């Protein structure tokens, strides 16, 4: 009986997002930040949410632990963390959720850390909030956590203030703070965007290894399809607040099923490809809600129907979904388009 319950918990995805609608409201108008977003993250899985600025990727991530901007509201859909619906939780329950299940890693570690507290004091605070009282035990676990994230001399680093560390070291501390309570789900919002490529490379590998070792799930928000390829198992592509496709990283990057993904891949400069003109996506994302497919005005494959009726995210094949009316007939052309670059 006990075993059956455990197996059940292991089978429930750590995160389920269904039909999520988020709006930003100002005095004059309401604008859509996310519309009908649906994806799930399995236990121990690294899921990438990729999109350009304004696509709604950070808004979706923040909605999961109630960190939305005060003008933003979840107006529809469901978010379940470990099976528990979180969109209507009060602030005490949200705090409990953040304490027990979910941790977040931000883009700018300097702003995420308290500038007037030492690294050690901040990590101790995290554990005290979780109910740990034994000073020696707290100290031992901080040293362990700092070692885990590859900081040399943890006993000395504990006494340092954030400004005394480099950007990469600060992000290591932020990761230590996120992982120290062994949360089930890590939300990482562009965690390496502010770092140099060599440090990004180290931090991504560290995050990946630690989460694999501890069986934690990760939602990684990024604008960089290269980062997705390096660390994610599955990926969702957001455009103008809508999920345009989801699938495994291998599927989405080598055989995209949405024209936006294909065009994005084709517009990236790649290693070893020289001097040729880049293929670009004409125009820019829509600033207000449009009736049909939000990508239709920029899409090379759009039909008149695309601008009239928004396509729904339709499941096709195992673990693969696409919001394009023409994904079936375009399949081969999109794969070709994406690989030409």
């Amino acid at each position, binding site marked *: 009986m006990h075993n059956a319950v455990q197996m059940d918990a292991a089978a429930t995805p750590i995160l389920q997002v269904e039909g999520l609608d988020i709006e930003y409201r100002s005095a004059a108008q309401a604008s859509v930040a996310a519309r009908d977003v649906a994806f799930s993250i399995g236990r121990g899985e690294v899921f990438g949410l990729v999109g*350009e*600025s304004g696509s709604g990727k950070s808004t979706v991530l923040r909605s999961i632990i109630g960190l939305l901007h005060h003008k933003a509201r979840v107006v529809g859909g469901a978010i379940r963390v470990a099976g528990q619906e979180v969109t209507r939780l009060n602030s005490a329950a949200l705090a409990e959720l953040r304490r027990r299940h979910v941790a977040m890693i931000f883009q700018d570690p300097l702003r995420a850390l308290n500038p007037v507290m030492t690294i050690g004091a901040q990590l101790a605070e995290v554990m005290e909030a979780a109910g740990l009282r034994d000073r020696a035990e707290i100290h031992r676990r901080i040293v362990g956590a700092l070692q885990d994230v590859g900081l040399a001399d943890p006993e000395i680093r504990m006494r340092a203030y954030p400004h005394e560390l*480099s950007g*990469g*070291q600060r992000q290591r501390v932020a990761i230590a703070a996120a992982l120290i309570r062994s949360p089930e789900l890590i939300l990482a919002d562009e965690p390496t965007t502010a770092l*140099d*490529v*060599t*440090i*990004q*490379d*180290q931090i*991504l*590998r560290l995050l*990946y290894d630690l989460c694999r070792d501890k069986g934690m799930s990760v939602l990684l928000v990024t*604008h*960089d*399809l*290269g*980062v*997705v*390829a*390096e*660390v994610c198992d599955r990926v969702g592509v957001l455009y103008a607040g809508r999920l345009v496709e989801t699938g495994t*990283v*291998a599927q989405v*990057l*080598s055989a995209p099923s949405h024209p936006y993904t294909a*065009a*994005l*891949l084709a*517009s*990236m*400069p*790649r*290693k*070893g*490809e*020289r*001097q040729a*003109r*880049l*293929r*670009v*996506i004409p125009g*820019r994302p829509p600033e207000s809600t449009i009736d049909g497919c939000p990508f239709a005005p920029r899409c090379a494959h759009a039909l008149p129907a695309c601008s009239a009726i928004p396509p729904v995210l339709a499941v096709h094949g195992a673990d693969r979904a696409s919001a394009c009316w023409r994904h079936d007939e375009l399949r081969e052309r999109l794969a070709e388009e994406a690989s030409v670059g």
Partner: protein
Amino acid sequence: MASGPILRLKGVSKAFRVGPRTLGRPRLLLRALSDVNLEVEAGTTLGIVGESGCGKSTLARIIVGLTQPDAGVVAYEGADLTDLHRRPPAVALGIQMVFQDPYSALNPRMRVGDTILEPLRVHKVVAPQEAPDERDRLLEIVGLSPALARRYPHELSGGQRQRVNIARALSVRPKVIVADEAVSSLDVSVQGQILNLFSDLRDQLGLTMIFVSHDLNVVDHLCERVAVMYLGRIVEEGRGSLLSQGARHPYTRGLASAVPQPIPGRRRVQPAIGGELPSPTNPPSGCVFRSRCPDVQPLCAEVAPTLDPMGPDHRAACHFPLTLRFETPGGRDAADDLTVSSTS
């Protein structure tokens, strides 16, 4: 187009005093550039890459004339531009800069058309009555409708703002454009549009371009030549393709393989380069890269390597340069090169 170097840097060094001002104690000396030698052929595009703090932006600023070097010579078309205060204005106009943040580089209270008109008038590029036509022509060159001249910067998108910055840089008809991280703040799809604009301008106007960037994919795509910097020094210089193959300096190869590529199934176990950039106020003895080098030897701590020829048009500063592609001492990146060459 190649007709001798349009720009020549010889022994350029720059140090800054940093840290707290404490009475009776000297402030720390940060060597931003140490003995940089560089030649740029007219009509070519040079990429300058490296991690933050490597001195690439200081180098760009010295070339444009925003920073005075402590030592060394900056020569442009044979004229000595080293002394900022004695730069002949007509010559100085020949080198223009495009900055990273297209918004803060524009005056928020000036219509973008006026932003472009101002240098036309101040430097008398064209007769006053022709200035509006010239402004419209410049806007069209960078792919903007002349109707946008009446807009303010906040009314434009990031890509449009960067186009305005490029139009302003072009207004005084420069021969050299220095772009410091000019596409870093733009989204991928917009970045591609601006990169194509730079390629077109180079081809149509015969511009020489110096492209400072931390994004190796961008430099690899755009630049015929590349200089790799580490802790204020050029550690390797050669054809742009050395970022994808043929690198002789272990730093170049490590930096290149640290760049995430949108190709699934390439996950490596080890980071390409461990550790962090040492403090430029206290660089390692000998080779500055030795503290992070996978192939470090005792000699590296004692003798600083010089930038030596490694083949035609190729220099690297390493005592133990990487040799054949599949016989690297660590053997770590050979597989990377294989992956890349099979997809390119």
